[in-house]
């Protein structure tokens, strides 16, 4: 699946398009005409749900159950992207039709619905899953039925599948730059690691600990604690933090626990303008529940913040809020979910086909210049090259970007020395 094999082809296509656009006569044609919907038999040789003017994709997220809190934003972003793509002429001249399924926050149910989307509905691509557990549950299904999954969440890494494009960050992309930054700018030496008790926080903290102990000179971890998902009482651990006085609280708490944690942190008199707190799990979405006042001053390490200043984002945010309400906020995962349909469209057009194997082959090297986070590119390991940014939480629930890596950070799902 190296990029080179297809380079001549795509170069040819690009030249051809430039040539066509340059022709005055071509400019008069309706847009769809030059995208020239190729014959269905040509773009679909494996029995996907593609007709002469439509192509069917699946959206698979939890819209009921506990995970609906987090996954709603992803559904909204994917629907926005698809609507925009359809407006601009669709993919290979075909309008995208959506079949939406509810994972219902239940992993076996995700597998069941994934199977339905692939085996029964023959979706050309599926945008979905949020938790690692749901992705792990559907992965064998996608491999067996040879489907294509665009997965939006930042996650622990340690995985790479031919049938998945990971549009969120794997752990090292999100962790290392943030730790370096806090060590460099704040001179922080001691870290207290916190997390919800499941694989993503534990793996992320493991990577963070290795980095702190092996790569940041003179730095140490002074405490590490995990809480069951849904835990709501943090006063004891807050006392422990007070006792150990770490320079940085490194918090990877998820879901409803977040709200409890920050409210209780604030109430315990820990002032985040004095005590450095770095999180990789609180996006703008979570701040709505936590309340800006409770978390103002905390730092988050993400690749995207709603407040990013760039032309793409300045179009994306109003479009999103026009579609889903002026008060809707956009978090890191929501933006990553928005990338999925676009990346798939670009890949299909580069491959000139919806066939899964051709999409897989064409994926490495796909560039999306219109991403709200800025330019991204698909790596050969199916993750994205993207920048890492640090934001400071403000009272109004937004993040102010205080740092941004100068280059794209390479995705490294199996980081040597961190395992």
């Amino acid at each position, binding site marked *: 699946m190296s990029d080179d094999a297809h380079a001549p082809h795509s170069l040819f296509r690009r030249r051809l398009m430039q040539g066509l656009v340059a022709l005055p006569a071509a400019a008069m044609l309706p847009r769809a005409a030059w995208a020239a919907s190729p014959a269905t038999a040509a773009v679909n040789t494996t029995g996907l749900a593609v007709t002469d003017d439509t192509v069917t994709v699946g959206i698979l997220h939890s819209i009921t159950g506990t995970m609906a809190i987090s996954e709603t934003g992803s559904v909204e972003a994917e629907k926005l992207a698809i609507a925009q793509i359809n407006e601009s002429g669709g993919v290979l001249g075909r309008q995208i039709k959506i079949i939406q399924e509810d994972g219902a926050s239940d992993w076996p149910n995700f597998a069941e619905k994934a199977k339905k989307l692939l085996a029964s509905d023959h979706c050309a691509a599926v945008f979905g899953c949020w938790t690692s557990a749901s992705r792990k549950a559907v992965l064998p299904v996608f491999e067996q039925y040879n489907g294509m999954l665009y997965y939006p969440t930042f996650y622990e890494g340690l995985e790479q599948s031919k049938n998945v494009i990971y549009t969120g960050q794997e752990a090292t992309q999100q962790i290392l730059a943030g730790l370096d930054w806090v060590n460099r700018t704040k001179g922080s030496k001691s870290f207290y690691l916190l997390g919800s008790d499941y694989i993503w926080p534990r793996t992320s903290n493991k990577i963070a600990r290795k980095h702190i102990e092996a790569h940041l000179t003179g730095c140490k971890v002074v405490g590490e604690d995990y809480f069951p998902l849904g835990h709501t*009482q943090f006063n004891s651990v807050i006392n422990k933090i007070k006792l150990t006085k770490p320079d940085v609280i490194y918090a990877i708490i998820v879901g409803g626990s977040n709200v409890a944690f920050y409210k209780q942190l604030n109430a315990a008199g820990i002032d985040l303008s004095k005590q450095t707190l770095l999180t990789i799990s609180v996006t703008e979405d979570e701040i709505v529940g936590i309340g800006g006042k409770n978390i103002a001053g905390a730092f988050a390490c993400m690749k995207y913040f709603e407040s990013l200043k760039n032309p793409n984002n300045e179009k994306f945010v109003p479009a999103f809020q026009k579609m889903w309400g002026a008060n809707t906020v956009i978090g890191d995962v929501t933006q990553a979910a928005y990338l999925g349909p676009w990346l798939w469209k670009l890949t299909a057009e580069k491959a000139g086909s919806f066939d899964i194997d051709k999409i897989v082959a064409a994926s490495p090297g796909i560039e999306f210049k219109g991403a709200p986070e800025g330019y991204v590119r698909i790596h050969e390991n199916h993750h994205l090259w993207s920048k890492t940014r640090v934001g400071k939480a403000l009272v109004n629930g937004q993040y102010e970007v205080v740092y941004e890596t100068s280059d794209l950070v390479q995705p490294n799902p199996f980081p040597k020395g961190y395992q």
Partner: protein
Amino acid sequence: MLAGYSLGELGSIMAMQGFAGLILFSVFVLMALGLAVIFGQMGVINMAHGEFMILGAYVTFLTSKLFTTYLPQAFGVYFFVAVVLAFIVAGALGMLVEWALIRRLYKRPLDTLLATWGLSLILQQVYRSIFGAREVGVDQPDWMMGAMNITNSIQIPINGLIVMVLTTFIAIGVYLLIFRMGWGKQVRAVMANRAMAGAVGIDTERVDRITFGLGCGIAGIAGSAFTMIGSTSPTAGQLYIVDTFLIVVFGGAASLAGTIASAFAISQARSTLEFFLSGSMAQVIVLLAVIAILMIRPQGLFVLKVRR
């Protein structure tokens, strides 16, 4: 882990840790009081108890929005209005549910469990349809946030204090109502012998309905208080339900004192263990200990027979 700290530091931490235990204790009592009334006095297993709490939280959310829009100058006191509203709304819904559902099931306590589980699914979806699947943020007035500095090194959370005060008031209220004003006697009479209670002039239906409403209303107040320390989302109520039931069962269902004693024991154990162990292990150990004790002394803790 306590090596290398000065006595003063340790003293402050101990004080704050003791206070953390007290806050957890208040939270547990508040969670369990409503259920103690419903399960303890009436023998009904209300699996939708958590959803009634979240109803209180949503009422508080709406009240805060109303105050921000129409009475911003009085925002500082909106919380007290919200508590009262939460009690009324959750209590009213509770009475409605009793009338429509629970009264048909008094002879089948295990079936109330299933029916109220169905109710909890419906309520969750109602919240989701009205307020959206995401969490809502409930703003607090500034005076309710942050900590009170007792000394330089001892800080006491203000919201914890408010929960404690609220819990004390409600516990006293329930105590007076159930044990001092004869209401409890009527409830117990109805439970012991419905026909006889009716014959001696007790309006049994009214007693049932008001008792259930009262329990749900208290759940509403608990939900309102929890907006200060926890999350408000359609499914947040589920987080509380196992803990709440265990506290009530551990205490011995009928006695208010038992509920309070069990909340105290569980909260202190959990808060202490969490300080020395990780949160997950602390929770497992406490749950196992509670079950073990229940096995050793069921007769001492189960003081009340469920209505059959």
